[in-house]
């Protein structure tokens, strides 16, 4: 199950990215394509084969993992801003891309780099699971979970309001999926409490989070396409029974 999940997630993300190509060429919501493309790349680099291949080129000291962290931060910054704008949460948008949000991001990037540098990361291994984990390593990993969790925490209230509101059913379902995906990122803050023998649980949560988030975002797009296809009859409720 946990061996299939990364590949399944990769296939889903790649499929959505390819499906966004026509919109990209038409110039519609380009950022959304970049978000899905970044997600695909993130997943690709967290799978053993591609990871080891790239890391071998980069010197075999797990620099690829650091790059993956930066890519993840970028993904969440873009996604966070776009979702905050879509769900009309000015406070979330401010928290993510306002001065405070960017300070948080800057600190996260700086500290991530710092802890990477002071840790002995020799010996290419995906997720750095094969290394001996000291405190600096724990801090590095925690920072990697922190920023996505921070963005998720900013977005959840606005998404919840949509889930419990009165939008079309398909959109509500998609928003619910997105909510689940982002909520899992908050759950992932508790990873240090999971015993090392249950590492599979961590990857289950991680990949489920990405999968739910990607499907939720794609679902929003789908709900739009569906609504546009139905001939819209904006009945004012004056003359006919609806």
């Amino acid at each position, binding site marked *: 199950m946990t061996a299939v999940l990364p590949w399944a997630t990769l296939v889903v993300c790649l499929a959505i990215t390819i499906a966004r190509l026509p919109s990209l060429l038409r110039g519609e919501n380009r950022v959304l394509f970049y978000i899905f493309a970044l997600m695909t790349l993130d997943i690709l680099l967290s799978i053993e084969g591609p990871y080891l291949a790239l890391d071998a080129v980069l010197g075999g000291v797990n620099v690829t993992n650091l790059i993956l962290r930066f890519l993840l931060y970028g993904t969440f910054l873009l996604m966070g801003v776009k*979702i905050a704008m879509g769900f009309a949460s000015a406070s979330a948008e401010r928290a993510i891309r306002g001065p405070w949000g960017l300070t948080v991001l800057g600190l996260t990037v700086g500290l991530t780099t710092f802890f990477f540098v002071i840790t002995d990361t020799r010996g290419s291994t995906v997720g750095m699971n094969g290394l001996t984990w000291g405190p600096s390593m724990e801090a590095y990993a925690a920072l990697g979970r922190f920023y996505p969790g921070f963005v998720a925490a900013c977005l959840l209230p606005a998404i919840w309001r949509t889930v419990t509101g009165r939008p079309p059913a398909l959109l509500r379902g998609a928003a619910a999926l997105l909510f689940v995906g982002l909520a899992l990122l908050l759950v992932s803050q508790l990873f240090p409490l999971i015993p090392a023998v249950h590492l599979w649980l961590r990857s289950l949560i991680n990949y489920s989070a990405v999968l739910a988030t990607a499907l939720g975002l794609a679902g929003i797009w789908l709900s739009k396409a569906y609504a546009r296809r139905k001939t819209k009859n904006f009945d004012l409720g004056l003359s006919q*029974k609806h």
Partner: protein
Amino acid sequence: MPLQSKSFQRWLHGVAPHASTADVCRIAGIKRTTLAQQLVRGKVAESTLVSISRGFDINPVQALATFDLYAVLRGDPVPPTACELVSQVATVDLLRAVVERSQPGSIPAMVLSATPHPTAVRNWVDAIDDGELRHRVSQATGIAPQNFSAHLTANRLPPELAIATSRAAGVGPAGGLVAGGLITEAEAGWPPNARQEALDAMTQGELVTLAGERLQALGKTLRRQEQDHERTERIWENLG
């Protein structure tokens, strides 16, 4: 709770002893699968009974009355109150009446649109509500007040709830069925011109006040819909 399929089948046998299920569905204009499903589940919707009654030229109210659940419909129809009649006039028709009263002859002669209108259920309940009605209905039926409200907002009124509401308000039992769209006013035994006459009997002040209330409620609903629509569009614009 809808009609028990056993008693429904007994009734159907009495109405059309020789017709096959296929014939019944064809005459009534309902889907075979729908009827089959309802029979299997053991509960037949009142609307199915009404469609079949119409198909066989039976008064649906009398057909419903043969079931114990709707025994209250037996006997001569109770005439509707003036308030009930006016509540079943569509808002546009009310507005036309206002214009006609202030400038006679300025608009073509009008015929009231058929029942039910888009806010018929809420207007009916408001018309018979003495302030405590919702409370009494929820006590009598066990329905939570917010669920009752949800029905009103969706302009739905399940037949059983319609009966319970009219009973709690002390008005004729068929009024709610008309407002909920299960039966027509004629089927409920309302005289053909009753709504028009009730409308004509209102003073101009009453008429304008009522039209104003309706417009205000409609405006609120429309504004809410527009806000919902705007929110949805914004999500799609950014993430679609």
